[in-house]
């Protein structure tokens, strides 16, 4: 199986450790991972903010970069959902039949990391060790667009030494919402305050999620309030072997 890593522009630029962690986990499971250098961004921020035309070149670039891969794995369920649900819409609106064919071919092969591991590879124990108290925040797009279900929790439960605790009101949005976080800063901050309070209630030392965008928002508030709780992408916990981390 030819696996292409779609690292996403945010993780590439701001959170490279997550990308390295995906590579570590997949290689540990005996797979070879390629990083197509032609990739950049899925265009979600532009699409969701109303700049659809500006997102078309990104959909085009994605289809070109990942042409020929059996599986495209990404540490963002949100970006995966963008490609699967909205790249076909972009291609149709652009009236580009060739692009529509490319998108139809490539989009169904995009998987978020958790469901790729449990669903495609059939693995729940990835050989990780992480002796810390962790709570998991299921991001909205992973739940309601990619329908990951309990795949991330099954992966986390199989991690050695982990103390996995429930997050109260886990399925409530953290308030990130892309540009929502700056266009509606008061409501966004109010939502984040409640998420932070739920995380504190869980008494976890680490909050984990499958998407660095939501985590950046939650972590920003955790850090601002000096809570001493840190955030980690699911991939980084799965890559951990208990040595440093």
């Amino acid at each position, binding site marked *: 199986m030819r696996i292409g890593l779609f690292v996403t522009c945010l*993780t590439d*630029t701001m959170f*490279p450790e997550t990308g390295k962690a995906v590579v570590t986990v997949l290689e540990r499971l005996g797979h070879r991972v390629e*990083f197509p250098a032609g990739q950049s*961004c899925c265009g979600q921020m532009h699409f969701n903010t*109303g700049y659809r035309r*500006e997102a078309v070149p990104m959909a085009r670039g994605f289809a070109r970069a990942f042409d020929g891969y059996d599986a495209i794995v990404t540490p963002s369920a949100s970006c995966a959902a963008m490609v699967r649900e909205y790249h076909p819409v972009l291609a149709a609106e652009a009236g580009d039949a060739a692009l529509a064919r490319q998108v139809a071919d490539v989009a169904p092969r995009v998987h978020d990391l958790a469901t790729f591991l449990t669903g495609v590879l059939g693995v729940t124990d990835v050989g990780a060790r992480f002796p810390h108290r962790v709570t998991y925040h299921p991001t909205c797009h992973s739940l309601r667009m990619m329908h990951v279900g309990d795949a991330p929790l099954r992966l986390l439960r199989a991690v050695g030494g982990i103390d996995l605790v429930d997050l109260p009101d886990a399925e409530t949005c953290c308030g990130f919402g892309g540009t*929502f976080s700056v*266009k509606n800063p008061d409501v966004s901050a109010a939502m984040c305050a409640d998420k932070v309070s739920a995380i504190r209630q869980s008494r976890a030392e680490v909050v984990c999620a499958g998407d660095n965008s939501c985590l*950046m928002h939650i972590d920003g508030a955790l850090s601002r309030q000096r809570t001493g709780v840190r955030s980690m992408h699911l991939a980084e916990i799965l890559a951990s072997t208990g040595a440093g981390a």
Partner: protein
Amino acid sequence: MTGTMPTYLGMPSFPRAAKKAVADSQLRRNLTHATTAIRAKRANAVAELDDWEQLRQAAKAIKDHTLANLDTYLLQLEGNVTRAGGHVHWARDAAEANAIVAALVKEAEADTVVKVKSMATQETGLNEALAARGIRAIETDLAELIVQLDDDRPSHILVPAIHKNRAEIRDIFLREMGDAPADLTDDPTRLAAAARAHLRSEFLSAKVGISGANFAIAGTGSLVVVESEGNGRMCLTLPDTLISVVGVEKLLPSWQDLEVFLALLPRSSTAERMNPYTTIWTGVADGDGPRNFHLVLLDNGRTGTLADPTGRQALRCIRCSACLNVCPVYERAGGHAYGSPYPGPIGAILSPQLRGVTSAIDASLPFASSLCGACYEVCPVAINIPEVLVELRARSVAEHKHPIERAVFRLSGYVLSSPRRLAAAQRAASAGRHIVGRSGRIRRLPPPLSAWTDTRDAPAPPPESFRAWWARTRGGAE
């Protein structure tokens, strides 16, 4: 053609209104209390049916079919209502609907009307239009009465006074309801009893009742009102004249179709298996109910909405308000911030379509969502609200030129669509990372990014992007 909602003109943008609401501690507590309770109850009521998803898909299919054949079914409805002794009027917009109703009230020689809770007449601003013509409209739904007595606006489709608690309601009754007992407490039973006594004389003396309808059945010309209190039934059966103002999207072809919706609506809205009162009437009947029945069919932007292949799904809405109750934005911003009788996620896609995206409030409504999708998950007619929101965002951006934002998105689009330009930007960010300090956190950024750092730290860029690391360690050519 776009519609109008005259009483909601000049509303501020959503973020501005929400800022005030977010800081209102009483409102926040009332809303969290009410929405949390109903959210859990709805989930239980829905879980009782193992064919919920099939019902939902059936409802979606029925509404889509009806909307696609609206012309046929509307004429069928008109024919059947007329044959049953009713009169049908057509209103293009709010002003026409209000004028028709006012003329009918004058014709009945009435100066007071009793009203069933109705979203359509909230939309047209009927009460205000009647008041301007010297006609007093009395809301008889308990929560609508509370809101009306307080000269306030509804903030929820099903629970218009959700933003008020019992103590506040007691104060309103004592202040505004002349016949309220002086020793009234905030006990819900006593509050309801006071309202009941207050309304009883109005029911018995009113010559005209005004209602909306939850459903209109084309095949027989029947109208359906679903309610909890029985006050609606008083208005629908006691006065001599009944006027019903009904949006054209309320149509269902047949009684078989109604069955599906009566399974979905109560569970979605009040979390009940069945609502207490369902009133169905067909034209007029000798010796039973009103002697004159008028049906005003309202467009007010609905046919315009129907023209959009994505946006038209908003017309499937049956006003259950399940989407409001699960919405984390609604829970914190409250209903008034939506600047429309339709608050919450459904309002954010309905109001800008009915009214167009020209005003400050309508241009901002499509952005009043984190796109979490909880609304779509609970919607009994499967309206993909996030999908419509992002489409309306594009419409809002096209309508309103924000030169700076546009420039930012053009530039970022230029950078992000090319791996080479993205890599260059990443190198620049990494090189500049020490400007922000050694903590690895950015505590303050200039506007507009200060909207982020006002409440959240931002991460500082790493020394090396993933792409650069890959090229360095794996020898991949960039």
